[in-house]
């Protein structure tokens, strides 16, 4: 589904990501773990067009999506969430969700006036979808709240909800668990599982909460020092001495010259 080949990115002289290659298979919940500074978030930013790689390629299915700007990557069906939620504060939860779908007729200035019926129809569909998503994540009671007034955990769920608005092919979750309490976290995990099972969405998840990763993800890809260290089932990863060393030994980067 997603193929990453020889990806590299430097900041200054530092190789944050260095000849990193891995594949995310269709319909899996793949975990991406590694110690701090291993380059996971950089990989996310490279995959979603927030950064341009120095070299290497990213493919979705057969298509080369290397270096596309974020909104084009988004249209390829690749959605991401942020570690720190980027909710639109002075807009309601429903509005936050209804914003997401692409190709809304009503986003062209003249359509609300000249094709009001079509626009209204589409709004109704999008709105139904938003309610459905909110139901799914048990957030319906918050639909008319300003997004800025939600709790930290609810904002994380809202982030996931945003990705669900577009029936994405691949969802990249950046630390969905950080700052979320246990109950919400369980709900988040079961939502992800259900989504994967029921809609065939592929997930790539960066997360520090190992219990969360180990329960949810197969396979797990371990990154260290900017490249893929290994890939395997959660049990394999847990038993791997190399992985443990990487975690306990610190992350170092190669420097030019």
């Amino acid at each position, binding site marked *: 589904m997603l193929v990453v080949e020889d990806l590299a990115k430097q900041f*200054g*002289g*530092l190789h*944050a990501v260095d000849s990193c290659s891995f594949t995310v298979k269709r319909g899996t919940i793949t975990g991406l773990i590694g*110690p*701090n*500074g291993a380059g996971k978030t950089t990989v996310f930013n490279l995959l979603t067009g927030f950064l341009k790689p120095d070299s290497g390629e990213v493919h979705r299915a057969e298509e080369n999506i290397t270096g596309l700007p974020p909104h084009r990557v988004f249209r390829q069906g690749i959605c991401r969430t942020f570690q720190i939620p980027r909710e639109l504060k002075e807009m309601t939860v429903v509005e936050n969700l209804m914003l997401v779908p692409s190709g809304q007729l009503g986003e062209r200035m003249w359509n609300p006036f000249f094709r009001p019926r079509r626009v209204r129809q589409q709004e109704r569909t999008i709105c139904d979808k938003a309610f459905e998503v909110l139901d799914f994540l048990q957030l319906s009671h918050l639909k008319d709240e300003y997004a800025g007034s939600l*709790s*930290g*955990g609810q904002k994380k769920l809202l982030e996931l909800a945003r990705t669900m608005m577009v029936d994405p092919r691949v969802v990249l979750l950046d*630390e969905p*668990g*950080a*700052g979320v309490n246990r109950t919400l976290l369980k709900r988040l995990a079961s939502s992800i599982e259900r989504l994967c099972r029921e809609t065939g969405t592929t997930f790539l998840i960066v997360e*520090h*909460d*190992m*219990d969360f*990763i*180990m329960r949810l993800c197969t396979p797990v890809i371990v990154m260290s020092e900017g490249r893929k260290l290994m890939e395997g089932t*959660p*049990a394999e*990863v*847990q038993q791997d001495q190399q*992985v*443990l060393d990487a*975690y*306990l*030994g*610190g*992350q*170092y*980067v*190669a*420097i030019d010259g």
Partner: protein
Amino acid sequence: MSLLTGEGIHSGYGDMEVLHDVSFRIEEKEIISIIGPNGAGKSTLLKTIFGLLKPTKGSVTFKENSITGLAPDRIVRLGMAYVPQVENVFPSLTAQENLEMGAFIRKDDFSDRLEEVYELFPLLKERRRQRVGKMSGGERQMVAMGRALMLDPELLMLDEPSAALAPKLAEMIFERITAINETGVSILIVEQNAKESLKLADRGYVLASGQNRFEDTGENLLANEEIGQLYLGG
């Protein structure tokens, strides 16, 4: 009486609680290493100690003064210095100017102290007129540590000093940390490199999910197999 103690600290960002009941202590002249998996709350702990975050519960005591919720500039005056993990230097200032900024609150002549810091980091003396923005990661880390030392603090807190450095440089930084400690400064270090930092630490704390898990001497912690499980689950 310990140099610094924290008791039952609860803290976090906004309504996101990251630390749930964390306690620790540091004696004079000790090196303490705090390790733990990502997201365990290590950096949050340092920020809470240094007054950048207000604990919701618990207390921090430094040299018998309660510093719970005190503003950073007040804490600095009490003899504690802090080196953040990132953005810890002033890039458009020269190395020497960065060090001078470290001594901002000193009213006396601090040229002796400057020399002492240069002795710890001879490379900085060589490059004292260079802008820090043009320096490498390792050099910046030295500038940052040097800046913190300018006030002659009794306690130096370092947030992941070896992160994003080449192995050789990291080794050098660790070696400098020992050298600083030998001048009588207590050190509280948060590290991703558990192995190296525990080697030089007198004692270590292991945090996981915002809670204390283990406390022991560095050697014992290194030998403890359960710690691996904390990192990788299972």
